Structures are given as structure tokens and as C-alpha cells.
């Protein structure tokens, strides 16, 4: 009854070039209006380019969230490193921060004028809705790929409750949940292996 965990099985056969990485992450960096960066990154890297599988993406994402630094930037740097080494990491970093850097400088010049227009505030709210929708969609898509067993589903629900609803700090919760989750996965795999 076991379904394959990865539907996005195709992994890049040809090496990814630094230029391709830079292009992808410049696009992503420029679409960070309204947030939802992780969702857009999943859409570009896993669904559109097929450079990583879902499970590779999730592993990368968890590490990017635990480590210090802005999560979307960490995610980009780690993906760049995986796909094209240190030069890939540098290209991903540059692509990710350049558009936001130019935008924040432009916005700071325009700020005094923009602040007085309610329309500008409304547009920002609209963009935020799409940003949240992108994260929500990625959550749904990746949750579907979890093994339909009480352990992984329970761990995901527990992490959501502690960090999201009860607002426990992310890093200690993740550091506590990871060994439990890895041990549970190891046990499940062995049980399935036997029969």
C-alpha cells in the first residue's frame, strides 16, 4: 500500500549552471513582496525547474530554519550550494538580496509620500494575502507527501501546535522534535523493511 513518497522524482541530470541559479533567485528575490518566499522557492526550484525533489527540499528547509540568518536567504544559499557548490551559494545569495536591497532603498526615498496614501496600504495588504496563500499551498502540498502514519502526522501536528498556536520558540522546539522524528522514521522504515 506504500505510495512513493516523492512524486517529483526527476532530479536534474545535467549540472545546474551558476547563471541559471542567479536568474532563478533574482526572480524569487523580486517576488518577495507580501512574503511567502518559501512557497515561491518551492514552486520555482521543485515544481518548475525540478532541481530538487520534495524530500530534499524539506530537508534543506528545516536546516535553513534552524540556522541563524533570514530563513529565505538561508534556504537560497543552501540550495545554491547543493546544486552548484560555493559559487552557486554566492549567486543565490546575491540574487536573493539584490532586489530587496534596491526595493528598500527606493521605498525609503518614497516613504514620506507613500505613507499618506491609504491606497498604498491597501495594495500592501492585498500582496500579503497572496504571500500567505503561497506558504499555505506549499504546506498542503508537502503534507500530502508525508507517510500516512500516526507518527509523522502527529509530529507535524505537534510542532504546529507548539510553535504556531502556543508560540513556543522555534529553535528549541525544532531541536527537540528532530531527534524524535528521525528515530520514528528509522523505526518505521525498519518495520516496513521486515514485512
Amino acid at each position, binding site marked *: 500500500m506504500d505510495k512513493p513518497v516523492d512524486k517529483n522524482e526527476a532530479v536534474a541530470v545535467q549540472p545546474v549552471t551558476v547563471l541559471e541559479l542567479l536568474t532563478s533567485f533574482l526572480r524569487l528575490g523580486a517576488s518577495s*513582496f507580501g512574503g511567502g518566499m*518559501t512557497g515561491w522557492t518551492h514552486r520555482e526550484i521543485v515544481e518548475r525547474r525540478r532541481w530538487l525533489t520534495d524530500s530534499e527540499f524539506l530537508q534543506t*528547509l*528545516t536546516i535553513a530554519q534552524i*540556522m541563524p540568518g533570514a530563513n529565505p536567504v538561508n534556504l537560497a544559499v543552501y540550495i545554491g550550494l547543493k546544486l552548484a557548490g560555493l559559487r552557486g551559494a554566492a549567486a543565490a545569495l546575491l540574487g536573493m538580496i539584490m532586489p530587496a536591497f534596491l526595493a528598500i532603498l527606493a521605498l525609503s526615498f518614497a516613504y514620506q509620500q507613500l505613507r499618506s496614501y491609504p491606497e498604498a496600504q491597501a495594495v500592501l495588504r492585498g500582496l500579503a494575502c497572496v504571500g*500567505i496563500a503561497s506558504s499555505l499551498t506549499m504546506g498542503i502540498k508537502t503534507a500530502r507527501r508525508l507517510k500516512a502514519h500516526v507518527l509523522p502526522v502527529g509530529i507535524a501536528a505537534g*510542532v504546529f501546535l507548539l510553535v504556531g498556536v502556543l508560540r513556543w520558540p522555534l529553535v528549541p522546539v525544532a531541536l527537540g522534535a528532530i531527534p524524535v522524528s528521525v528515530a520514528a522514521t528509522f523505526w518505521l522504515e525498519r518495520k516496513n523493511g521486515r514485512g
Partner: protein
Amino acid sequence: MDDDKLLNLIMMCIPLSLVSFGGGQTIIASLQHQTVDVQNMLSGARFTDLYAISRAAPGPGTMIVSLVGWEVSGLLGAVLATLAIFVPSSILICAVGSYWQRHRGRPWAIAAEKGLAPVAVGLIFAGVFAVGRSAQFSPVELATTLAAGAILLRTRVGPYPLLAAAGALYFALSIAGQV
């Protein structure tokens, strides 16, 4: 004098980069204390202004250091402060990442990769929930979010058309006095 301030700012950003767990918001308090109270780089009111801009701007909240850098010494200050906040944490994740890559394929590493997935899924939903709660959605905004989610689930539409459509819709609603 400006060069001294710029150097101080860079030396302040490098350690902050390495403790900015969970993104930008965790370092704001420390950055404010250092730049305003200790080093007198800018006034408290100016810092609050810059904070508001960084919240409205795209990109991570840590981008506020670009604006502080600009205050201290113009474009050069903005570029160097931005690099000082992003490069150290990036080097750290490269070090951890390449260690992991070398050991992949071992049984414990495969179990670890699969075991990270449930934690990641939980954190994704936690992030959505936290942002949604702090945004205090109106019914119209909730409907927009759900509609955008449905489009993203069922189609291959990319970010730009959706963002442009939402921006235009809310601009129109605002003109009509509906939001």
C-alpha cells in the same frame, strides 16, 4: 568620523548575523540599543521610521541594516552593512551544508533527511498561522487568501500574475472605499 561609524556598524552586524535565529525580528531590539543608545548613529525616532519602512518593504526584516548603513555613510554604508548581516550566516550554513553533503547516503543520514520532513511541515503551518493571526484578516482578505491558495493548488500560475492581480484588486477596492 564617518569611516569609524561605518566600521563600528559592520563590527556590530557580523555577530548579530550569527545570532539572528528565526530571521530578522530577533535582532531588532539589540540593533536599536546599539545604534541609538550606545553609538549615537541615529535618533530613536529615525530608527522607528526605518523600522516601519523595513516592515513595509519586501525581503527579510534584517534589511533594516541597509537603511542604517545608508544613514551612516550613504550607498557604500548600505552595501557593506547588508553584506555584514547576510554573509556570516551564509558562510555558516555552507559549512553545515557541505558537512551534510559529504555524509549523505549513509543510513543515519537518509533517516535524518526523511525525519526532517514532518518537522518542516509543522513549521510551515505554524508560520502561516502566526502571520495570519498578526495580520488580523478581514473577511475580504481571508477570501482573497483562500482564492489565491486554490489557484496555486490547481494551476501552475507563478507569483507575478497573482501579485499583480491582488495589488490591482485592492487598489480598486481602496478607491471604491471598500477596504
